[in-house]
Structures are given as C-alpha cells and as structure tokens.
C-alpha cells in the first residue's frame, strides 16, 4: 500500500507528494478502521451474549474448555474477532499518539504495525489454545 501511495504521488513536487501520500494513508486507515469496527460491533455483541449465557448457566473453566475444544465454529469466530482487533486497535492508538503526543507519523505507523502483529499473535495463540489445547 505504501508503494502504491508513493507511486501515485510520484511526479509531483515533494510538498504536494507528501500531502497526497498523507491523504491516501489517512483515507486507507479510516477505511480499515471503519471496516474492522463493523466486524467488531457484531463480534462484541455475540461475545457478550455468550459470556452472559455461560455465566448464567454456571459453567466452570473445564466445562467451557470442553465445549470449545475441537469447535471449528468457535475457532473461526474468535479468529475473526482477534484479527479485527489487531486491525482496529493499532490504527486508533496511532491516531491518538499523533494527535496527543505529537508522535511522527512514520514512528506511529511502525509502532502500530508492531502492535498489530503482537495482538494478532497473542490472540490467535489464545484461540488455538482454546480449540486445540
């Protein structure tokens, strides 16, 4: 995506190119945050309903694990949930860092990418543990 932005901005003056690259970057970030937010809205709702149901039914940790192990539906749902979080959270935090801490966009983007990979890795490992552990 960065290459495409640079290619689109190529052939213009440096200042105009930077403004356009920033415009493309912001537009894409907004798109992905909005898309991930739509997924998260559904996931959070299902997640909360599931938790309330599980607690009301008085399920123990063992009983929960007994239901999640080997469940492809559980793995797929929480896999999507984790990936949506990994997209959504770093974009928002990078924006906050830029606005409130004055972090340079390049630094904020690098930190956001690292956080995205970390969230995805930790989350998917947890989901794997619930399904296959």
């Amino acid at each position, binding site marked *: 995506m960065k290459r*495409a932005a640079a290619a*689109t*901005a190529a052939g213009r003056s440096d200042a105009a190119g930077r*403004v*356009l690259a*920033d*415009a*493309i*970057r*912001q*537009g*894409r*970030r*907004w*798109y992905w945050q*909005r898309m991930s937010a739509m997924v998260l809205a559904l996931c959070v709702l299902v997640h909360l309903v599931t938790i309330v149901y599980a607690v009301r039914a008085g399920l123990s940790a063992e009983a929960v694990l007994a239901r999640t192990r080997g469940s492809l539906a559980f793995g797929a749902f929480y896999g999507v949930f984790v990936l949506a979080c990994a997209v959504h959270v770093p974009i928002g935090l990078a924006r906050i860092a*830029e606005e409130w801490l004055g972090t340079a966009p390049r630094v904020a983007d690098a930190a956001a990418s690292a956080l995205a990979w970390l969230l995805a890795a930790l989350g998917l490992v947890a989901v794997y543990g619930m399904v296959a552990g």
Partner: protein
Amino acid sequence: MDRSGDMLRVAIWRSRGDGGGFAHYDVPREASQTVLDVVTYVQRRLEPSLAYRFACRVGMCGSCAMTVNGVARWTCRTHVARVADGDRLEIAPLANLPVVKDLVTDMREFFDKWARARGRFGGARTRRDDFARVDPASPARRAADAGIECIGCGVCYASCDVVRWRPDFLGPAALNRAWTLVNDSRDTAQRERLAAVAGDAGCHACHTQGSCTERCPKHIAPTAAIAGLKRATARAAVRGTLGAEPR
C-alpha cells in the same frame, strides 16, 4: 414581553495596543431588539470609533457574526431576549480568527481554506452546450442541497475545537462546500478535490464533536458533510484513485 425602558449592561471587546479588553456600555432595551441593533446603538450614540462589520441585516450576507455571551452567533438574527443573561450581554469578535479591530475579524484564512479545499466549481460545458440535467430527487442532488445554503458567516469555524487545536485544519465550512461539489454531477475536479480534503488538515482531523452543526444559523450539518467526505476519500484511497490523474 415588552422590556422597553429597561437598560442592558453591555460589555464589548475593544482593541488596544496591548491586545484589548471589554468596555462597558448601558443600552436601552427595546422590543424585538437584535444583538446587531445593540452594537449599532453603541457605535452611533456612545462609541463612534467602535469597529464592527455588517451588511444585509437579514441573515443573507454572513458578515455580522460575533461571539455573544461566549457563543458564536449571527447577530442580525439573534434577538437579545433569547441570549441575554438577565440584563447582561457580552459581545466579542469571533474566535479562531485574527482580530483586525474591535469586533472585526480577518476572514482571509477562513476563505483561503475554501480555495484549498477546492471549493470552486470546475465544469466542462460551454455556453453553447445544452443545460445539464440533474434530477432534483437524486441522492447526490439532495446531499448537495443540504449544504448549499451556507452564507460563509464563520460561526462554525469559530465554534470548532479542532480548528483551535490545529490551525491548519480546513474547518467545517470549507469541507461542507467541498461536499456540495463532490455531489455535483457536473463538476470535473473530483479527484483533485478529494485529495485536497483528505488527510491531517482535512476531513480526517474532524473529531465529530458537532459544534458546527449545533451552532450553524442556517441549520446546515457540516458534521454530516465531513462524514460523507471521509467515506468518499476512503473509497478513492482503497481503489487507488485518490489524486490520480483521470484516464
């Protein structure tokens, strides 16, 4: 209620060498009196050197906006009875704009931002072409209609916290203008305009606080226009057409 005979205690911002301060005047209260009437009374009867700006007096020209009791308003259509705090009225220049003198602000930056947001119509037809046919019921025409009555008074700009935080932000009025043109099927500068309104100084800086929409005297919703620009720029950015030359 007829409050004729009562006096208003009016504080008006006056420029001085050190920046300025409020000067106090007593103004007779009248029925159906507007804030602009009060300022005019002070200038004509009490303080001839008071500088302020107005033209049409009927809410069309957008030149008389001021900060009245802390809130940006068009003064020619704002009745004293609606905004006075008891018998007190505090009148200051619009916020977020440099003061020229007293209640007069320098609007250059405000209107320069309209130009930076590509607020100028770009058409391809000539006078020899037929009229463009635009369906008044089409979603795009309705979206343009919703924002087209802006009078450029600067109330939204003065009410915007994001403009206060980051002076390069284009502001609600310029972005609203851009949105009306994004929805103009005759306009031929769409790609350049979307690139101009995206990014840190453009629609993506908006925090959707809605002060512009709440304060707009014409009941326009720049917040909705900015949300529309975010959607349009995101679509273009993902498709790779943002700022690209048309093929």
